């Protein structure tokens, strides 16, 4: 490890000076290849399911899904080898950029219905997806800079909450309940890991419970309908409850080993809505059964476990918070999506990582995994401005 000049306590956070790269062979060895393999396996299952969703065809979804994953894999590795310090220094910038994009979508995309993307030609960029990782990075940096005890101080906790709340409010306005929940839950998880005192969470829970009616009044009618139908899908079996009921029918009819790949009746006969995006897990459950569903959940668990391992091995607070922030975001995606299709959560529009068709979400998670790889590669860097 290289030493750095002086031990002047800086009054305000300053960027970390670049660290000389370690030997490339060591760096490659530090990459968690099992993590890469697991993610790729999940993406392969995704491609297979999208092949089935396309009626036994690589078009329109499976082929592009594969290509996107491959491109994303390159980005992931580039990020992994790009140096944790570089990403540290770009954290606020990235957050700022994402925030501006979100505002842009809010202003420019004021057309009919919910506009959440910017058309880039090759793909539709959803800033709210990217924000999930940008928020994790910004929080990790803020809480790294504040030091081990900083998280509890008001001048840190205040800005941290602001970092979470500002984009959350914007996406809620879009309106995208799923992303808002994901942003908040992910942010709070990082605060928890950073060491914010227990009692403050107690207060937060109490406040949340108290403000539920107020939030309810802010929700759009269709969001309320979703929550209500979630609680009682039979309320409106042909309207809002239709998706939940049909999803449960399709999944439940899969049984233990499923109807076989490409053999799902409900999904292929279009009883199942959005079978290639939000409800792809239902189709998986119908065609591959309980066995297939549990296998995919196990792969996700393995992926998250590898990210935990990276976090525990990291010498830096930034690395630990970043890795677990990514891991928690990934977990939240999976948990919300799977709960949603099984009728345990309202239908809020959260895709299943690496399996659902959709560019930005996959790119976001690959960026996240890339950052986790960077943490792994630079695990021994404590990321401190100086060392005595």
């Amino acid at each position: 490890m290289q030493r750095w000049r002086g031990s002047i306590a800086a009054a305000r956070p300053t960027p970390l000076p670049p660290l000389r790269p370690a030997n490339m062979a060591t760096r490659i060895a530090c990459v968690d290849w099992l993590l890469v393999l697991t993610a790729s396996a999940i993406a392969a299952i995704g491609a297979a399911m999208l092949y089935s969703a396309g009626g036994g065809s690589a078009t329109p979804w499976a082929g592009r899904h594969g290509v996107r994953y491959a491109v994303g894999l390159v980005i992931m590795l580039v990020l992994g080898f790009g140096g944790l310090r570089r990403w540290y220094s770009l954290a606020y910038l990235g957050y700022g950029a994402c925030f501006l994009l979100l505002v842009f979508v809010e202003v420019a995309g004021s057309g009919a219905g919910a506009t959440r993307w910017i058309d880039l030609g090759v793909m539709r960029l959803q800033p709210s997806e990217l924000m999930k990782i940008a928020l994790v990075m910004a929080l990790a940096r803020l809480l790294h800079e504040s030091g081990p005890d900083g998280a509890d101080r008001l001048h840190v906790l205040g800005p941290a909450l602001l970092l979470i709340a500002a984009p959350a409010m914007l996406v809620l306005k879009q309106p995208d309940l799923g992303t808002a929940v994901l942003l908040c839950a992910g942010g709070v998880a990082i605060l928890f890991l950073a060491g914010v005192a227990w009692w403050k969470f107690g207060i937060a829970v109490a406040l949340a419970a108290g403000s539920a009616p107020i939030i309810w009044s802010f929700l759009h009618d269709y969001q309320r309908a979703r929550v209500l139908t979630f609680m009682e899908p039979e309320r409106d079996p042909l309207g809002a409850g239709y998706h939940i009921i049909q999803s449960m029918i399709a999944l439940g009819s899969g049984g233990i080993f499923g109807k076989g790949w490409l053999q799902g009746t409900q999904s292929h006969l279009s009883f199942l809505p959005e079978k290639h995006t939000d409800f792809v897990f239902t189709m998986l459950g119908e065609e591959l059964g309980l066995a297939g569903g549990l296998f995919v959940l196990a792969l996700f668990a393995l992926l998250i476990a590898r990210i935990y391992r990276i976090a525990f091995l990291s010498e830096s607070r930034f690395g630990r918070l970043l890795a677990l922030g990514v891991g928690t975001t990934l977990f939240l995606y999976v948990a919300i999506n799977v709960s949603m299709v099984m009728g345990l959560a309202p239908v809020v529009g959260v895709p299943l990582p690496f399996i659902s068709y959709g560019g930005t979400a996959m790119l976001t998670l690959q960026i996240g995994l890339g950052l986790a790889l960077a943490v792994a590669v630079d695990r021994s860097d404590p990321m401190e401005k100086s060392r005595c």
Partner: protein
Amino acid sequence: MSTPQEDRRRFGRRAFLLAAGKGVLFAGLSARMYQLQVIHGDKYETLAEDNRINVKYFVPRRGVIFDRFGRPLAENKRSYRVLITPEAARDLNAALDRLHAIVPISLEERERILWQAKRNAKFIPIATHDQLDWDAIARVAAHTPELPGVDVVETSRRVYPEAESSAHVVGYVGPVAKEDLTGDPILGLPDLRIGKGGVERSHDLALRGRAAEAKVEVNAIGRVVRELERDPGAVGAVLTSTVDAELQRFAQNRMGEQTGAVVVLNIRDGDVLAMASSPTYDPNLFSHGITDEDWRALSTNPLAPMNNKAVSGQYAPGSTFKMVVALSALEHGIVSSKKAFFCSGVHKVGKGQFHCWRRGGHGWVAMHDAIAQSCDVYFYEIARKIGINRLAETARRFGLGAPTGIDLPTESSGLIPDKSWKKTRFKDQWQLGETLIAGIGQGFVLTTPMQLAVMTARMVNGGRAVTPRMVRGDADPPTPPDLGFPSSHLAAVARGMRGVMSDSLGTAREAQIPSRALRMGGKTGTSQVRRITREERHKGVRKNEDLPRKERDHSLFVGYAPLNAPRYAIAVVIEHGGSGSKNAALIGRDVLLEAQTRGSAEWHGGTGQNAIEAAIKRERG
């Protein structure tokens, strides 16, 4: 200030807690998956199957009905329908224009088609033409390459070759009404026609056949994806009616403009050889939806052409009831056939006076002359001695007062009164005078023409409880049970009926068949529609012809032939037809003569294969 080590330990603890939370959530999700897919798996599997499988039904070919000699009474005729599928036609308006050039489409029709196209899913075909003839269809078929989305499908129409004359026998078919629904899904098919009257209705289930069923897989908007399995169903059964179509037509025509009914039975097996009811209607009108105009004409006609008077009409039997009274008297030992009573033209009971139809009376009459000359006083005497309850019991054994059980809809039961009936009906005591009136078939007594024919058949077939039938089954019915009347009694009554037509004073002597071998016996009846008051009787009864039609007497006749070895029984009721001897008896004579010369009661053992093949050929057109 915590050290980095402490910070790390705290991070480890909290990360572990977070991981534990995640683990619990994943376990919860797995449990939920297990619950949905394993515990409730069967339920969701059923729901999924219900989702995707629809059963489609196809109307089976309705069974053909033949008469007893293999002549068709009800057949099917192929007809064609043009369908257009908006999805396949792409530009519906242009497609309709092209079709219009070949077979015209009226503006209203076009509007209806466009409206339906807007309302339905694009893949649902819409009928543009129905009941097209062969030429039009050939033109459409020739142009199919230029008519995308246009299809020609075959449908079937019910045809009744005998038209009006067979209407009351075969009935007609019509679309399923709300009250016809039994939950059988085939009844929901728009093309299905079910029997609405006559044999078409009473044997509807057999004629209908079993619908072909195709289980098809459908997607969420109901489009058929593929066929999973098919049950070919079964075409409707071929039925052979007991009726002789030509005798039927003869009987129907013989009534002419008069209203009423004629029933001819085979006295041995109850085969209904003819059952005419007048006025009648053309059942073909209903086969493809009757027009409002036609329906109004039929349903508002005061003469009720839709009403089968042979089984639904109830009339006082008048003197045709007298044989029942005579047999009851013989059975109960009230009189012997030799015992004579004196008829002065009036019979007094207490203060009441009961008149004979013959003002001067018949003098001394025994049973034979009482029947042949239809002496009312004789029957007042014996009816009083029998008593109403015993008389009613005898009448019921002849099939009166209850439905005969014939395989026809809307059969009336008629009425044979007795003491307990009057008590329930009027909360009143039975009067002796009412017994006397019943003794000449008036008063409360009501019978249908079918019941009168059955009654007559039972008197001349050796006293067997034959029941009438419209359709011949494969096997002959068992010999009907014996009603227990001694053959000497039956013979005495039959001789009386011969006297009606052969004696010099017989009431229907003008109606006897000249040919010796074909001679018949019978009994006339005149049933009063209105009461003749005492003062009217004083002033002189007005002649029937002078009364308005509605008040004129019904004219009745029952008979059998030939005399020596009876085969046929007949009942004729002509509404407001005046005296039975003048009107109904002549019709009965003509129909019985026709039946005998034709040999209507012959049976050649069912409908031959040739007749069935010919019907199929005619169906194809």
